[in-house]
């Protein structure tokens, strides 16, 4: 049996290695499937649901469903992209994602996906959360108003940094990220600027301090190319 087998993604054959998820295989082959909570260095999480696809007619998360030979996967369809826009709209109104004043603008995966999926308005009523910033740490700032609960910081701190600085608390609509210290403040943890968790946030929730707008407009990650184009190019370069 060959090491490489294929499934069909939007009618195109995609080669995969046994054990890869559909998302991993698609990204490696240069086919972008929208995603937010996925990170190649961490185990699949399946929480943001942006990568929801249809596999042989059934919904599934591309980041958790294993690729299998002969699967017929649809992703870039009006229905699935419409659902993704709804998910993005809900993320935007649940937090306070004021791109014009956010230093992550241009480098933010949430913003980039909203552009790429042509989200024109938030549509839903804003929650307007007012969550206090945690600026207690000398080198890192947390703006909880921008957290999308992808848990990348939770996973990075636990699995790479070995510190368990972050956790998810609450249930349902009350779910939120907390800092694991008696005071709840980041300053009272052993968190460091060099931690993986300090640099993994896909949005503007966890930010190294005093960087701000140092990167000029035009040189930011998503200034020139869409997030999907960038991912596809990266795959081509790595191939």
């Amino acid at each position, binding site marked *: 049996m060959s090491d490489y087998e294929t499934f069909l993604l939007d009618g195109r054959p995609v080669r995969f290695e046994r054990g890869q998820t559909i998302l991993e295989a698609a990204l490696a082959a240069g086919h972008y499937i929208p995603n937010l909570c996925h990170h190649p260095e961490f185990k699949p999480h399946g929480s943001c649901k942006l990568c929801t696809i249809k596999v042989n007619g059934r919904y599934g998360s591309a980041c958790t469903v294993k690729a299998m030979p002969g699967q017929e996967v649809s992703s870039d369809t009006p229905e699935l992209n419409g659902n993704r826009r709804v998910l993005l709209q809900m993320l935007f109104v649940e937090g306070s994602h004021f791109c*014009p*004043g*956010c*230093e992550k603008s241009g480098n933010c995966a949430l913003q980039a996906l909203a552009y790429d999926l042509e989200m024109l308005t938030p549509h839903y009523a804003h929650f307007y959360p007012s969550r*206090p*910033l945690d*600026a*207690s740490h000398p080198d890192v*700032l947390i703006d909880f108003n921008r957290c999308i609960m992808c848990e990348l910081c939770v996973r990075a701190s636990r699995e790479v940094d070995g510190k368990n600085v972050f956790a998810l608390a609450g249930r349902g609509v009350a779910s939120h990220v907390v800092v694991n210290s008696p005071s709840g403040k980041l300053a009272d943890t052993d968190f460091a600027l060099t931690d993986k968790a300090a640099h993994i946030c896909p949005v503007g929730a966890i930010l190294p*301090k*005093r*960087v*701000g*707008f*140092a*990167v*000029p*407009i*035009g040189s930011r990650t998503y200034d020139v190319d869409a997030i999907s184009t960038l991912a596809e190019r990266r795959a081509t370069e790595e191939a």
Partner: protein
Amino acid sequence: MSRLETAENPQKLKRIAIDPVTRVEGHGKVTLLLDDADRIHQVRLHIVEFRGFEIFIEGRPYWEVPVTVQRLCGICPVSHHLAAVKAMDLIAGYGPLPATAEKLRRLMHYGQIVQSHAVHFFHLASPDLLLGFDSEPTRRNIVGVAQDFPEIAKQGVLLRKFGQEVIRHTAGKRIHGTGAIPGGMNKALTPAEREEIRRDVDQMIEWSLGAVHMVASLHRTKPEFYNRFGEFDSSMMGMVGDDGALDFYHGGLRAQAADGSTIFDHVDYSTYEEVLQEEAKSWSYMKFPHIRALGAEKGWYKVGPLARVQVASRLSTPLADIERKKMMALGNGKPVMGTLFYHWARLIEALHACELIRDLLDDPDILGTDLMADKGDRRGEAVGVIEAPRGTLFHHYRVDENDQVTFCNLIVSTTNNNQAMNEAIRSVALQYLDGRKVSEGLLNHIEVAIRAYDPCLSCATHALGQMPLEVDLVDASGDLIHRARRNMGAPT
């Protein structure tokens, strides 16, 4: 201060409202109270919107502020960007900027002076001046100007575009860019970008000089009218460099009385609270600043083009300085005070800014790559001041040890002109409306006086938490069910 601010018996008078005031930035209205003989008893410029930036940037990290706070306005955001970053340079502990960084900020700022002055004169004011104050109202706009004076309208559009392009090359975007960061700039100017700006700059100087001459020739057609329209004595304030020349970007504060005598000079703007004081009134969302030493009654002043070209000892570029002297010669040794002189002064400034841009493009430093200052000790408090297109702009911040803003006070250009604008419309109301049957054309005279100041009403209304507020709850038939009031004085 005019007797027309508050009528003695307002309830017995009829009320005329100009709502909204048109061809200005933001939303405002004018109310006039008249008796049965159409005699004017009260005239007020009201600001009917608010922004609240002073409060809602509290708690935000200081490095975010120069970008956030410029969202106050889409007409001259660069002013807020630069005033804030000048304060944050100091908060962050940076020393003097490298020559390239300061010159790039100046280039951005001069681009904004050009674009803002162009949009105001050509798009907002020229319909009154070229078509007539009481011309057909449906044609009294930029489209009407484009039909009757297509070359002038084209020059206005392209002057504005030129200024916007200068901003884009220095800030990354035409509106709401990010170029200035605490300690310097985030982007150098490339040789290609310099050439793109330089290609057009001589044409812009020629057009802006032509615009100055056009306003001068309009004045010659009816000198008495232009001299006396909305004329009243007032103090004036602007920023000057060490040599007394107008400096849009940095310098000391200079204030002069109506007779041209000096009230204060070369005041370090970080001590602005020692020379200026703000007062709130119940009927406006905009505060009323005044010169502390002269008190609230007599201490109000003008800022903006007419004030600063006159308080300055000179302009540093040759063509603009010649035009400044020509305009000031009409005062016979005293400052000119007619409201319509604002337009003349504004275009002199646009010319000055175009000349300054040309000089900066010729300066080898402008292509440098040393963009950040050396860093020293953090500060907890700082003030940044700039001469925005509409006048002197103050940004004052305190930041705690966690880098979060704990206090912000903004005195924006239009706020400085609050009392002067009210005095101007009272003067015009007495000159043209008092005792006469009110017509649309006569009411437009009031708006002409306001427009001359180029007010940015949206920028000027940010005092969230202090402003008077009245909320009426009415049922479907319009009957009042409940009224909630806060910080309200006498009803108008």
